[in-house]
């Protein structure tokens, strides 16, 4: 009798299975909400300044302009006295790419400080056709290579569409960043400002751009945040994998089943200080562009001649813009992003981060 009464108080087995399944669904929804839906607000906590031993390519012509010749007491300037060259070293080194006036075409931008040219490549990997866009970038001032983190009244961490961020940041060329607000808790350093101090999260890969224009890539647990900031890191990104190191494919691209498959990609390449490239690969459209594996993407950067290359957020996030116009066809129409990397004219006044 007592057992029968106990049995009456129990739900039928099918009801228990249904309720537990619903509870599992609810738990996964709550997890997703806090893991990658709700933005995580961050605020600048520290400014990283360039070290004196590694001067920033933040060009102030008065600092190192050639000295004017000493005038004779009773004479004029000697004839044919050359005008002091006040251009930055990069502007001199890459002068064939810069123009005296700003020139904007459908696939390029050039000015005295910035030169960007976008090329469309059609590559075939086996029976797969891939369309990718390579933005070849020359800058005269490191401040032209920036990140943009949109913020609202609650601080940073919000998401916006690429077009709106490019407009707000006066970007000449822009590409998706590393979605810092929605992945991990690694250190976030942008434009010389430390936004998230995840110094103990070194297990991810990183890419650092320094004030002197050099770029370095780091595998899991390779980065020393303190050393990188002491060496004058201007930007640190964390997504990965590292595609190219020392001019060769890194060979270590992770083991995610879906991620390793051909996908739309966005990645950053480095040739030498002042010379970089953005690469976006369209994908998930078999009749147009299938997408690339990391190995194929690494080979592309090696063929381009990059010293190092680093993968950023791809898939639906892979978007590139030039002169306010979309360059590629983002998968699924693109998505809202938490940050972008961009090329813009250097600010007229010296920013606080580089004083």
């Amino acid at each position, binding site marked *: 009798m007592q057992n029968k009464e106990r049995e009456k108080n129990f739900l039928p087995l099918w009801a*228990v299975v249904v*309720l*537990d399944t619903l*509870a*599992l669904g609810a*738990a*996964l929804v709550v*997890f997703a909400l*806090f*893991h*990658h839906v709700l933005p995580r607000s961050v605020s600048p906590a520290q400014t990283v300044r360039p070290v004196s031993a590694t001067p920033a390519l933040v060009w102030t012509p008065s600092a190192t302009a050639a000295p004017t010749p000493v005038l004779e007491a009773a004479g004029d300037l000697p004839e044919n006295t050359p005008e002091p060259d006040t251009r930055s070293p990069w502007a001199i080194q890459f002068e064939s790419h810069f123009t005296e006036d700003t020139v904007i075409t459908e696939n390029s931008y050039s000015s005295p400080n910035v030169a960007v040219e976008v090329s469309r490549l059609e590559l075939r990997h086996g029976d797969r056709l891939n369309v990718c866009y390579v933005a070849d970038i020359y800058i005269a001032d490191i401040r032209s290579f920036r990140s943009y983190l949109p913020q609202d009244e609650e601080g940073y961490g919000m998401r916006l569409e690429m077009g709106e961020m490019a407009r707000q940041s006066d970007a000449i060329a822009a590409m998706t960043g590393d979605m810092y607000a929605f*992945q*991990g*808790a690694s250190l976030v350093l942008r434009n010389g400002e430390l936004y998230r101090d995840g110094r103990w999260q070194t*297990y991810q890969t990183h890419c650092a751009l320094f004030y002197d224009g050099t770029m370095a890539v780091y595998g899991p647990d390779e980065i020393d945040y303190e050393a990188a900031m002491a060496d004058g890191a201007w930007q640190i990104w964390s*997504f*990965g994998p590292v595609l190219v190191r020392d001019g060769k494919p890194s060979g270590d691209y*992770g*083991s*995610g*089943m*879906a*991620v390793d498959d051909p996908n739309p990609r966005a990645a950053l390449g480095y040739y030498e200080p002042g010379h970089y490239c953005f690469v976006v690969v369209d994908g998930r459209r078999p009749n147009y562009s299938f997408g690339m594996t990391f190995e194929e993407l690494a080979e592309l950067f090696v063929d381009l001649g990059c010293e190092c290359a680093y993968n950023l957020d791809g898939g639906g996030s892979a978007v590139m813009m030039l002169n306010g116009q979309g360059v590629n066809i983002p998968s699924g129409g693109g998505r809202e992003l938490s940050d972008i990397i961009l090329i813009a004219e250097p600010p007229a006044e010296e920013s606080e981060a580089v004083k």
Partner: protein
Amino acid sequence: MKRLLLAILPHAVLVLALMFLVLLVLHEYNPYMNFIGSSVSRIWLLAFCVLAIANSVVCIVRERR
């Protein structure tokens, strides 16, 4: 209330265990989303551990009665 909590406890442990199985599969599918190592995952893992301990204690106490 106590009966209700003791009745829910094993189901909560089951749900969390299944959730982490799902996260492990998703992590293999796309490790860059950091489903296992994120701070959110660690909070859920902590809850799972606490509930599993509580459930085990309840079972052991019942067994010994």
